[in-house]
């Protein structure tokens, strides 16, 4: 992680051969966005803190053998960044494939079919098929909540739900349990969602969820469109200086 800077200065860097200037408290992702360069991402969503978990936004930085996540890497003077090399494309495609192989994603009968970030990423990254063996885990749907359903089969562990609940709603109902491929998002300490004491039923987690893992009860196939406009607004309003 880059160190936190208290004051910022303006630097010049190169993204995809183009010289741009930026503040040192900005991430590569933010600068790229300003320049109209779209870097694929899943755990990143504007309005929430970034954690660099999904690794889809990794970029190449000249002089660094390792790929760096654009969402948590701050820019610096003279940096030369490439966002769409063959190496990166192959890397991203593999990640998306792994996401598909890890759980049970069946687009054709999914509530989010056609409005799904994961589906869009597969298209964007040119994933035609899943070449990795499916893990096909047996996972229980949690439909105990009065208004919402959590289907872990479609979860990609982006933790947007965990962050929005903690950072915006302040309830911290969601959290992570387990490690690696066994990790799951849980409510409270693993209680069924409907029995959670902390959940305020605000539904923000549902709206930020990139897939059909969190959805409103009663929607049918392809009917779950998510509304995310509220997020930057809430974030800004809460940052108004006291």
């Amino acid at each position: 992680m880059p160190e936190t800077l208290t004051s910022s200065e303006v630097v010049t860097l190169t993204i995809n051969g183009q010289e741009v200037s930026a503040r040192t408290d900005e991430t590569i992702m933010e600068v790229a966005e300003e320049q109209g360069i779209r870097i694929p991402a899943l755990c990143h969503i504007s309005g929430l803190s970034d954690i660099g978990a999904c690794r889809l936004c990794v970029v190449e930085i000249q002089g660094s053998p390792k790929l760096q996540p654009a969402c948590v890497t701050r820019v610096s003077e003279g940096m030369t960044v490439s966002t769409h090399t063959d190496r990166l494309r192959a890397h991203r495609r593999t990640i998306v494939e792994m996401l598909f192989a890890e759980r049970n994603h069946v687009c054709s009968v999914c509530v989010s079919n056609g409005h799904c970030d994961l589906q869009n990423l597969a298209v964007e990254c040119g994933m035609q098929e899943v070449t990795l063996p499916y893990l096909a885990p047996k996972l229980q749907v949690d439909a105990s909540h009065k208004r919402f359903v959590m289907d872990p089969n479609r979860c990609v562990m982006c933790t947007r739900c965990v962050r929005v609940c903690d950072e915006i709603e302040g309830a911290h109902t969601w959290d992570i349990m387990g490690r690696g491929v066994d990790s799951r998002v849980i409510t409270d300490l693993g209680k069924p969602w409907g029995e959670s004491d902390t959940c305020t039923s605000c539904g923000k987690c549902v709206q930020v969820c990139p897939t059909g893992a969190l959805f409103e009860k009663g929607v049918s196939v392809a009917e779950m469109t998510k509304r995310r406009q509220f997020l930057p607004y809430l974030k800004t309003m809460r940052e108004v200086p006291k």
Partner: protein
Amino acid sequence: MSKTVTIDPVTRIEGHAKITIMMNDDGTVDEARLHITQFRGFERICEGRPFYEMPSLMARICGICPVSHLVASAKACDALLAVAVPETGARLRRIMNLAQIVQSHSLSFFHLSAPDLLLGMDASPASRNIMALVSSHPQAAKDGIALRRFGQHIIELLGGKRIHPAWIVPGGVSAPLTQEHRDEILATIPEAMEAVQRTLAWFKPSLKKFREEIGVFANFPTLLMGLVTPSGDLEHYDGRLRFAKPDGTPRMEDVAPERFNEFIGEAVEDWTYLKFPYFLQDGYPDGIYRVGPLARLNMVGRCGTPLADAELEEYRQLSVEERMSSFHYHWARLIEVLYGIERIKEIVSDPDILDTHVRAHAEPNRSEGIGVSEAPRGTLMHHYKIDENGLITWSNLIIATGHNNLAMNKGITQAAKHYISGFDIPEPLLNRVEAVIRTYDPCLSCSTHAFGQMPIRMQMVDSKGMVVKEVSRQ
């Protein structure tokens, strides 16, 4: 330039209709069995899924008639919600179900009946097919195609150009009918009406030529089952469940379809994946019954639309024995096509059909739901149970081909007994068995996953279970 393509590029995954003939030691037939050897396990796939997903999950049972499963499944979900579907929503579903019946019947008629009827049963198989029909009777062929197109087009207008439309949802339909699409449907009605009336006009006189075949096709008497309106008329979407005697008179008072479990049992045999539903009061296997277009028309009071009722009246001139001939499936399908077009016209002509209140929303209010509708081939039943959170814990489907399973096996046995003497399988038997199975137009891709045409494999087995003879036809 072009050379002849010798491969058949249309690869479909196929299943054989496998038939076993069990012989007695004296060279007589004991029993013949139709095996459904593929297993799809859709009931298992659903376990643990939110019930709201069921209609679109179930529609995937079949790429040929997804609409029928959509309707029955959505109705089962309505029952879980315990809501009344808004009237317009219900009528829109009804249109789609009828459109499905029109297009399915048209294809079936065009394929199965027209060549036999127009070219003659005596014509060699090579010259008694669709292609020969197309050259000799182009108008009849065009009408068949136009009718199928009519139904398909309505389904696309309502549900979108997808193989598995997701438009029918628990509580109603997901989008109302637009005026533009309403007008488009209305515009296609006259052509379809002309096509079916032209077809009926040549079909009916042609029946005279087939007295003998109608006699040979005469089947054994069985009970009949299907939906009827509260007043006992033709019904495909809702209504009450009727069990009728072979002559079409009700066997007992019509019941709410949700009560089917009180009257239908399902027997399992270890030699086939397809279960054997039977009428409980008569036990297994005596409780044999049939479903489908012929059963429906033989047991209803009226159709309920003027032109179809006139046709039904003409059909009813036949004696009860004649009406039991499976040959008349063809006629029944044509009358239902006519009925479907008339009914669709009636429904879309009502200005209320453009009402935008087409879906009821609710939480699940019952833990068990049953949806019953009439698919082209007969009564379709979807039965689900959910837990307190709305996740499916159990489901059972009874499809038309299932209802007819006992009758199909009996028909095959009858044919085998008639044609076989000694340990040999004579050629005519294969044709006859195929004709028996075809009469029921079984959609094997629905009961299992067999695609495409009907290759038959027939085995003759002696009393010790040894195969003594085997023939197959691709």
